């Protein structure tokens, strides 16, 4: 008796529900329509804001750069001062990136894998470059290494020039980019734990084999991702570098500084031409960024990618 009654009730229940649906279909349809309108409106607003704030400026950069034709564009890019700025920027990246990778791995490994006194202080200190305004960071370096600075006299006596010279530019960029790699690597090191390393040790592996075969592969995408962020920042850094560089043309001008000088001298077309280079770099790093972000989040490297 019970067994037959229950399915019957269920049939009635669904029947009731479908009837209710047909009763209120009209109301639901209008509600759905208004929801779609809201959704469409929000999407349109987002596209407009993006276009206004991001796409339009980018288009203007390219438009202004090419306003006087391709020849003028190429001339601006090939001018000795621009080439020197490009070279300096490349040099800065070439120095800061390896340092960042080494420091990031060391800091990430120590903070992510071990508990030691002062660990939380170290973590906080790592964020200092994010918290301090780049201009202030630049001034700190002037205060330390400038002619009248703390180490200034000693440096002067030994004929070493830091401020208003390439070392200053590199130092300032290092300061600003230091947290990027470490910040990406620490959470992964932490979540991976120590078990795989312990397993490798029991199997007889020494420190370096464990590091290169077990620890490093587990953070490799985060490492690349952090490096990309650091490189992008190193190329684009303006504030800190501006304070320490001295704006010596062909010597201590990085690309952003060079653009500013050109702009201040009302050389709009060349300024935009050089700016288009930075924009191009930004677009490329953005594409890599998207690619790496996917890798980093999926985490597991499948066949062929490992």
């Amino acid at each position, binding site marked *: 008796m019970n067994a037959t009654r229950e399915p019957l009730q269920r049939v009635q229940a669904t029947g009731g529900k479908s009837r209710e649906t047909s009763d209120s279909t009209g109301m639901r349809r209008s509600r759905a329509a208004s929801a779609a309108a809201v959704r469409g409106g929000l999407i349109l607003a987002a596209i407009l804001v993006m276009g206004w704030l991001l796409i339009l400026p980018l288009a203007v950069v390219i438009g202004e750069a090419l306003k006087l034709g391709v020849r003028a564009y190429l001339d601006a890019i090939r001018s000795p001062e621009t080439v020197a700025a490009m070279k300096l920027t490349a040099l800065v990246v070439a120095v800061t990136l390896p340092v960042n990778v080494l420091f990031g791995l060391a800091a990430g490994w120590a903070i992510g894998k071990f508990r030691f006194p002062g660990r939380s202080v170290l973590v906080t200190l790592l964020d200092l470059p994010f918290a301090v305004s780049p201009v202030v960071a630049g001034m700190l370096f002037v205060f330390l290494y400038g002619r009248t600075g703390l180490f200034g006299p000693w440096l002067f006596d030994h004929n070493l020039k830091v401020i208003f010279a390439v070392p200053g530019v590199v130092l300032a960029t290092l300061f600003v980019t230091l947290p990027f790699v470490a910040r990406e690597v620490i959470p992964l090191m932490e979540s991976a734990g120590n*078990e795989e390393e*312990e*397993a490798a*040790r*029991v*199997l*007889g*592996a020494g420190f370096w084999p464990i590091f290169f075969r077990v620890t490093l592969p*587990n953070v490799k995408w985060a490492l690349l991702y952090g490096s990309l962020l650091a490189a992008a920042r190193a190329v684009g850094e303006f504030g800190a570098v501006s304070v320490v560089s001295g704006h010596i043309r062909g010597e201590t001008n990085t690309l952003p500084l060079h653009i500013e000088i050109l702009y201040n001298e009302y050389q709009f077309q060349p300024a935009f031409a050089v700016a288009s280079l930075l924009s191009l770099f930004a677009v490329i790093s953005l594409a890599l960024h998207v690619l790496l972000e996917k890798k980093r989040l999926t985490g597991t*490297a499948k066949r062929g990618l490992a």
Partner: protein
Amino acid sequence: MRIEACGITKSFGSFLALSGISLTVDPGELVALLGPSGSGKTSLLRIIAGLENPDSGHVLFDGEDATRRDVRERQVGFVFQHYALFRRMTVFENVAFGLKVKPRKERLSRDEIRARVKELLRLVQLDWLEDRYPSELSGGQRQRVALARALAVEPRVLLLDEPFGSLDTRVRTELRRWLRRLHDEIELTSVFVTHDQEEALEVADRVVLLNQGRVEQAGAPEDLFERPASAFVMDFLGNVTIFRGRAEDGRAHFGPLAIEYPEHAGRPSVPVAGYVRAHRFDLARGEGQKSGFWAVVKHVSPSGALVRIDLSDGELPSTRVELSRERFEALNPRIGDRLFVMPSEMRVFPGHEDGTLTERPPET
């Protein structure tokens, strides 16, 4: 290889994990370290492996002091609780790892490594999965890869930390039978940690029961089960119902239950605890010759060869009874029935939670 641990003490901060533990594992033996969580069993295993250093005490391998020897030189195989497989390596690379990182002089050639890994994967019945990554395997498969990886370096001793802990019941029973067979095949001195008494009793040659950093009892599974050295052992090793009462004039009284307790005759009244295993009860619909008490059936779970019945009455603690299927069908108890519960064997331990046994427990 023979493993000896002598007077191992280890504390983490203010927590004393192991206090003066000694034990011996004979060559070719399969020993279970059994205990509740926090009893120190994993710490002891890690100290034997060399992953942890004891505060005091020694670990001897074949009579040779290995206490200060680095993990890398101890030649132990270790299977971690959560497998700890190298997630960026395939199954093949995982198993080959220990062979590839050997110093150049001792290292096998590529082909030899390949052959050895294939052989190990066949042993754990996973040769068809060598190109997979750990994330693509089931729990039981990961466990077997971890085992093959540990065996690859031809360890002198195999240590397993909760080897079946994170597997579902079916795979677990299958895998532990398989481990037992494998152990009989390769005759490697092995120690495994578990909190599951059934697992320890089924798989191990010898069981070492730990509690609060001490060895409570060590011996063959039937020794521990039939001759528990303490109330803790009896409680830990199986479904027991504990009755609290007092001993007076050579008898122990637990509410309506009273049994002979001759060892206590002529001494002042003391609190005692009576322990009865679930299968040492009988149920009847009326009172018989044996001493017992009335209780109401609260729950019946007829799964497997034994039927578990939970009974309760107002005064005594709820009682878990296991009946054979034949006995259950003959009696056919239903929820709400009032039945007469008769313990057929009870062990009396002095003091309520006093872990020591000073007198031989009598039988009713």
